[in-house]
């Protein structure tokens, strides 16, 4: 996902809790991330995750979508109610729409699939820990689909519609462009790209747009 300016400055690596029901996968991720992040805890199910997160107060939680005890969405619900400052990056083998949109609407600030490389994952973690959003090409595609232009007037234009610029950014991400490449293509800064993506994330989480809910219902989400 490109270089990261904030982290390159030598700030302390983000403190991370890994939540995944496969121990093998947890240790694999831990090994791949190396020194880029500080893994302070691990959990294998919803209850353990809530306990560890409450105890360790991490900057970021790497959250598996499919977890025994209610899934990643349940962890999001229980943690964010008490600790809204904790940031979540969802991680899954699945790229099915219901999983992706489900955790993002539940409060995750990004979604990556488990096939992501260690370097890219470290980048994504740092980015999300800094408060930005991480969209995979597929997530960008889902969002474009969900906000597809229709003739129906939006109920809340502020939340229910993507701006032209946001749409352009998402299309480039869906085409496989990294943030840096998006910035170069549109003659804007990487920071502006991040702002656009965060704004899209907010709309996705808060919008009650009729089309979005219909789209979600058609895919048995929400």
């Amino acid at each position, binding site marked *: 996902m490109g270089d990261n300016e904030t982290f390159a400055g030598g700030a302390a690596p983000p403190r991370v809790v890994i939540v995944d029901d496969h121990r093998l996968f947890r240790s694999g991720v831990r090994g791949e991330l190396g020194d880029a992040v500080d893994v302070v805890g691990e959990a294998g199910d919803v209850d353990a995750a809530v306990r560890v997160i409450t105890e360790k107060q991490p900057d970021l939680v790497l959250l598996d979508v499919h977890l025994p005890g209610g899934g990643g969405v349940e962890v999001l619900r229980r943690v964010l109610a008490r600790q809204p400052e904790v940031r979540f990056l969802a991680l899954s083998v699945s790229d*099915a729409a219901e999983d992706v949109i489900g955790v993002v609407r539940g409060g995750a600030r990004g979604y990556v699939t488990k096939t992501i490389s260690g370097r890219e994952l470290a980048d994504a973690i740092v980015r999300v820990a800094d408060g930005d959003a991480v969209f995979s*090409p*597929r997530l*960008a*595609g889902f969002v*474009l*689909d969900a906000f*597809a232009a229709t003739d129906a007037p939006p109920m809340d234009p502020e939340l229910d519609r993507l701006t032209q610029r946001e749409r352009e950014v998402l*299309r480039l991400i*869906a*085409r*496989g*462009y990294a943030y840096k490449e998006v910035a170069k293509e549109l003659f804007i800064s990487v920071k502006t790209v991040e702002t656009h993506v965060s704004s899209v994330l907010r709309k996705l989480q808060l919008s009650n747009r009729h089309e979005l809910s219909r789209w979600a219902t058609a895919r048995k989400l929400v």
Partner: protein
Amino acid sequence: MSDTAAEDAPRMRRARDGRLVAGVGAGMARHLGVSTAVVRLALMALGFAGIGIAVYFALVFFVPNEAAADPAADPATGPAADPAGAHTEHARRQGRDLAQLLAYLAVAGALGMLFLLFGGLFDPLLWLVVFGAVGGAILWQQANPAQRDEWVSATSMRSRKGALRAGAGILLIVIGVFGFLAFQQQLHEARAGLTFAIATLAGISLVAAPWIIGLVRERDRERRERIRNQERAELAAHIHDSVLHTLTLIQRRAEDPREVQRLARVQERALRGWLYQRPADAESTVKAALERVAAEVEEVHGVPIDVVCVGDGDMDDAIHAELRAAREAMVNASKYAGPETVSVYGEVEPEQVLVFVRDRGPGFDLDGVPPDRMGVRGSIIGRMERHGGSARIRTAPGEGTEVQLTMPRIPGAE
């Protein structure tokens, strides 16, 4: 009626669903587009006129069964077998409808009795009674379908209720007919024995029918359950076989990371196909077709291709050409751009379909490509322009390559 049907025989099939005896009545009704009740009653009337039975048997022999509705259904296991099992409505319709059959038998019995008692076709009294009985039968047949479905639905409690109703119907008809005849002073002493026999029969069937129907339904349910288990076992076997096979291959080719990755991707896609199979036909929508093209290129060349598609729509010839151009672009990316993932993005808009194929390879100098290189100019740019679309290639040394395909959609294709 039966004559016209015989002439049009090639299009007529004996019904598999909703048959009572051999599916002739239901099949003919479907063929003629009239209610099954009308056809059945007409056949019955022809039967008493003397030719109906012959016609019926001729149709049984000369009209083939219709093809099984469900391709997975094994005809040998009988019409009641419903391997999918999920559609109870369908399952119910596949069996012979016992309550219906009983009702028709009752009507036929009543008609027969009338012939016996009156001994002629032209007695006005006979026709009075026949019309009454036929009217009653049709009323029963045409009664609120939802309610009728409830009467004959598959649960044993309800089937018992349905059989009871059918039995009560028979009894009512018998009582009605005999009462009418007694009132008309037509009943001779010699026929009192017949009355007794029929009443006894009706009583016995009233007692036995629910039990028999219950047994038949129980057997049908067990058979369905068995078939469902068999299907589940087959599915599990298939998945296990394919996954185990791939894992073995991966262990053997462990020294070749590219081949291992290819095997893993192919298997992953196959499994996903099994688990989350999309209802859309691979040939008929843009999204499915684009994903299929990418999967094929990936399998041949072993470079992962990620497809993101926004919107969807029906295919047309121009879009077929666009997808062939996209395939060519994916093949080029796989061949020349190294092992990094190729990104494919499709966007289906009302007026046009866009496809982007992007790789992160070394890129090349577009002006430096010799004019005789067919790959890019012929297969991609030329093909797009012949079909009214356009292709753009963006590349520079060190920056990868992106092929952008734009094809206008035929208006009204949506």
